[in-house]
């Protein structure tokens, strides 16, 4: 039963999934580093968060930056994934979601 199910799951896996998984992990680690950079600055040297950056401070720029960066990285990720899916002829199926 388990084998049957696993085989079935394998069948529905796209060819691009290994690529997407690797890319996801790499991009996750990059974002993780930026996020925990923010946490570390707040923990180790919180006064640095008051540093002036173009009329705002580091806390606002870094904090809002983390939100904007999430969106930018998400767009890059999905573009690369879609490209890989097209390469394997999977794009039509995905497009009709």
């Amino acid at each position, binding site marked *: *039963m*388990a084998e049957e*199910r*696993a085989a079935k*799951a394998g069948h*529905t*896996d*796209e060819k691009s*999934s*290994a690529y*997407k*998984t690797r890319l*996801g*992990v790499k*991009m*996750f680690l990059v*974002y993780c580093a930026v*996020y925990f950079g*923010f*946490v570390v600055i*707040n*923990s180790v*040297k*919180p*006064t640095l*968060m*008051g540093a002036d950056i173009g*009329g*705002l*401070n*580091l*806390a*606002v720029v870094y*904090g*809002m930056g*983390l*939100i*904007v960066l*999430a*969106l930018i*990285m*998400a*767009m890059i*990720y*999905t573009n690369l*994934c*879609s490209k890989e*899916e097209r390469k394997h002829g*999977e794009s039509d*199926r*995905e497009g*009709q*979601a």
Partner: protein
Amino acid sequence: MNYEASYLAIGIFLVFVVFVIWLSFYLARRTRSAKGYYAAGGRIHWSVNGIAFAGDYLSAASFLGICGMIATVGYDGFLYSIGYLAGWIVALFVVAEAMKRRGKYTFTDALDSKFKSKGIQLMAAISTLIVSMFYLIPQMVGAGALVKPLLGIPRDWGVIIVGSTVIIIVATAGMVSTTYVQFLKGGLLIIFSTVLVIALFTRGMTSTPDPGGGKKFHQLKSIDATLARDGTLVLSNVSYSVPADWEKSAYWQNGFIVLWESATPCPLSSVWRVEKRSAESFLLTEALSVTELPEGTRFYNGAPKESHRFFQVGHLSEIRQDGKVVSETEPLGPMSFLSTIKNSKVVLWDKAIFKDGDIDVTIYYQKPTPGDRVMRPGLKFKVGGAPIETVNFISLMLALFFGTAALPHILIRYYTVKSPASARKSTIVAIAAIGFFYILTMFLGLGAMVNGVVDVTDSNMSAPLLARSFGSFLFSVITAIAFATVLGTVSGLIIASTGAVAHDLLDSFLGLKLTDRAQVVAGKVSAVLVGCVAIILGIVFKGMNVSFLVGWAFAVAASANLPSIIMLLFWKKTTKRGIAASIGVGIVSAVGLILLSPSMYVRYGKLASEAPFALDNPGIISIPLSFITLVVVSLLTQRSTGNQNSKVDTA
């Protein structure tokens, strides 16, 4: 504080409720199969699913809680926005496609896809129920707390109305109606929050803001007091006088003084904060007080609530623009809005609690704070202070980051779309919508902080009260949306719990092997039962501040669910016993450590310092512990499950 009910708000909310109930019955025709009921037939378009994610995720805690926290402690409230949003990165990069590929209806399906293990089915279902209940209780209590001041309906009725509406939504068309309710709510919330922020920018800032709602801005007074040679206190303002024995009162011992609002003793009095300038000279600044008699009667600024002696607060005591002090500004843009607050001085409010005989006294007093202090962390989370505070902060940021991608009611949304790629695309729409909303929370919170609308006794009201300062229409719309917010989130939680009871426990774990039709019936019956439990819990916990339970939900999700998801995907030696043990240890350690934490000890009526565990946020201990358990148990049980682990996962 007292608010007048708005008939327009009741009207808008009723229209919304009637519409979603009609929609649910209409959609019920499409949901005859189990797949239709639990996963909307996998036919939801990814863009709709993305906004529904926002509707699911942006709970009352996000909308009201974060805005309120920013309005009272500044940037520290925004840390929640950052953490809650960053969690979506984990969902997108690691969890989304893999969960979609493995699961059928629930998060348990995905965890169990490889092993078909009773242990995993049971533990994952329990975890789903625990996380969903922790999340559900504050939503239901919040519904009751909102309904009274905003719609003028008794508390319990608020809980019953919200609970019954949600039962109808979920029991008719399951995930299909839930999705469309969340889509509508998510869309409305983002659109009208944007309108409110634009209105805020257009207004600019003034040091005497109009709180609206028929209330005037309360100009705070200060009085010089001098200690005379005969031991009496002489005031610079003759409209006030000092009661006898002022020096012996509990107020004076705690840094405050009560003054009569007349040159002679009179029934009206007010409380003032005492700042010592020298041995004989003091500065008295106006404060707000709430006193509660032993039998429970409360007085606001020395009078019953109905006397309206209590006032809304929050303003800039000094506005500085381009290096100059001004009394008001022109309309502002997003950047100039933030930089103006950063360069100005904000009057925040602190709280002191003490006993005066057998009367409980709570005093809210002014705390003028430089804008640049408000705009960086540290007013709530004492980063840079004691090391334990720093560890607490890191632990919280860890739970927020890793909790989102492990919330069962979020994960089930991946089964409503057609393919893994659609799951990914809907996550991106969710990140865009939720990220945009969280940026708005910064402006809404700070806007409330400087526009004279903060109710010091209930910061959760900051966003609706800010809307009221722009007139009754915007107030009514925002109020109605606050209710819709509760409906959307509660529907998601109930369908997640329903899946755990009917699909995971009855069908999979107990092996009842229900037919497709029976699964739908079981789902609908579970929805009614879980909904009734939610109504009862909402009434039982009424009046208690239970918003901390959302934090518990995140801590348990991050500790119990995430390690299993990650290891199942990336570690080929993971075994079924490892997963079941890890979920169990995650739940027990997260809940156990919370029960032993300082903030819980305060709730038990004990001292925070007596708590055996020094942190309020258990994530930093419980998340690694759950990972270690999974690794150790998996390594110990290699032989028994070796055959099933031979296939290396590629996703």
